């Protein structure tokens, strides 16, 4: 008992260590050797199990069915977004997302059809990791989790809390092992199937581990800022030879002068 307690304390201390935001190209990754081993493991699991399964799934299901599956799982966990809207004091977004969940669950046949998007209730992406980030918690260490993929101290805590904001958690008898496995397998295969077209891009990287790490941390940082993160410092003015930078500005842009335009 006491020992268990002590292990938990150590785990929490490690998880919350170094709560600062690091630039994505120089993150805190003290576990890199372990993370790289986990990444190799995940890649093998993908190569031999997940990817072949995803390919077969694409071969035997029509596109509209896969879209339905994607919508269904997205709607199933949507209360997590709603709860975290409110945790981040985004009240009107919370109201809109509540409406979206109701509309999609009822008129979208349990979430299979994304009706909300068509009636002006767009999808948002919030979770407890983002809530922590919103209130100033840094991402801490980068982590590569077996079978799960990239994460960090902040987001792994967030994932743990997210379990309790997904309604499926509260349906009695629902989360026995067989149900859970069916859910997990279908959801994973479906997500992987949606990702198949990107494989070639991954293959043309110098170091896929670093690519994934940079992409993950930037992506999460952008989500914390709802898509408008502060611009990253590209460091152009840091060192001499400025032939490529900064000449006089062209005509300034008058605010409000331009509206979004559609070009085919």
């Amino acid at each position: 008992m006491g020992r268990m307690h002590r292990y938990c304390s150590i785990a929490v201390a490690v998880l919350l260590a170094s709560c600062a935001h690091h630039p994505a190209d120089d993150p805190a990754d003290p576990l890199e050797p372990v993370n790289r081993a986990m990444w190799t493991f995940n890649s093998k699991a993908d190569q031999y199990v997940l990817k072949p399964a995803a390919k077969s799934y694409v071969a035997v299901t029509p596109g509209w069915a896969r879209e339905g599956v994607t919508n269904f799982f997205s709607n199933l966990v949507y209360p997590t977004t709603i709860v975290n809207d409110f945790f981040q004091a985004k009240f009107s977004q919370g109201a809109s997302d509540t409406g979206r969940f109701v509309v999609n669950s009822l008129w979208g046949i349990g979430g299979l059809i994304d009706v909300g998007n068509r009636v002006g209730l767009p999808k948002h992406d919030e979770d407890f990791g983002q809530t922590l980030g919103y209130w100033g918690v840094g991402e801490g260490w980068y982590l590569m989790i077996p079978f799960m993929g990239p994460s960090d101290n902040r987001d792994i805590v967030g994932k743990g809390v997210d379990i309790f904001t997904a309604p499926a958690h509260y349906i009695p008898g629902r989360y026995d092992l067989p149900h859970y496995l069916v859910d997990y397998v279908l959801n994973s295969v479906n997500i992987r199937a949606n990702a198949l077209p990107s494989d070639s891009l991954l293959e043309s990287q110098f170091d896929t581990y670093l690519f994934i790490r940079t992409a993950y941390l930037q992506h999460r940082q952008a989500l914390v800022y709802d898509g408008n993160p502060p611009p990253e410092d590209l460091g152009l003015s840091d060192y001499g030879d400025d032939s490529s930078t900064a000449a006089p500005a062209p005509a300034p842009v008058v605010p409000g002068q331009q509206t979004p335009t559609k070009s085919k």
Partner: protein
Amino acid sequence: MIKLLTRPLLALALAVTASLGVSARADTAPAQAPDVALKTTTDQIRGMIKDHYAEYKADQPKFYQAVNDVVVPRFDVPGIAKAVLGLNYRNATPDQRTRFATAFKDMLVHSYANAMLDNYKSVSINWMPPRMLNPTEAAVNTSLSRDNGQSYAIGFRVHVVDGEWKILDINVENVSLVLNFRTQLNAEIKRTSLDDVIARMQNGQFKSDSNANASQPKAN
């Protein structure tokens, strides 16, 4: 988690697709809003693909040439090279800087030209109003929609070079191309050398033989 990564990945291909579409037409006036030239070039390369699709499909070098002529001038290639090299830029000789810039540019053209060719029809671009970061730097955000309903956030970071707006970075779902390559390339340079990395980019061999063995000693 896979979704988190792959959406940006796919989008990156599509983005560079749309984005590499920028023109350096001599008749374009330099005094204009940051997004005007971007739109012009995007329309231009898409028009060219539309007119010469079969030709380009059959003759890849010809398409690379078209991209080099029309799209590449819209990018601040030396600026991108500098941002990607980061601290390594300081130690590089002028010759290395030039060779790196050219190799990096060619690598991007070769990587993304085909995605551009294959996807030009299924994509439409929604341009947001540009956001000025400072008088000579701006962010131009777009939303790229595919005909299957998926959409991606694509952003351009542009700045002024010789009175013209040029692309310095592309963000796909807020994942920066420059930061990504900066991380990867600087790690590779540390393990081997700048010349080695340039040579590998030129040969299209991104993965080094020693990739499995990260403790490979530095060559220089």
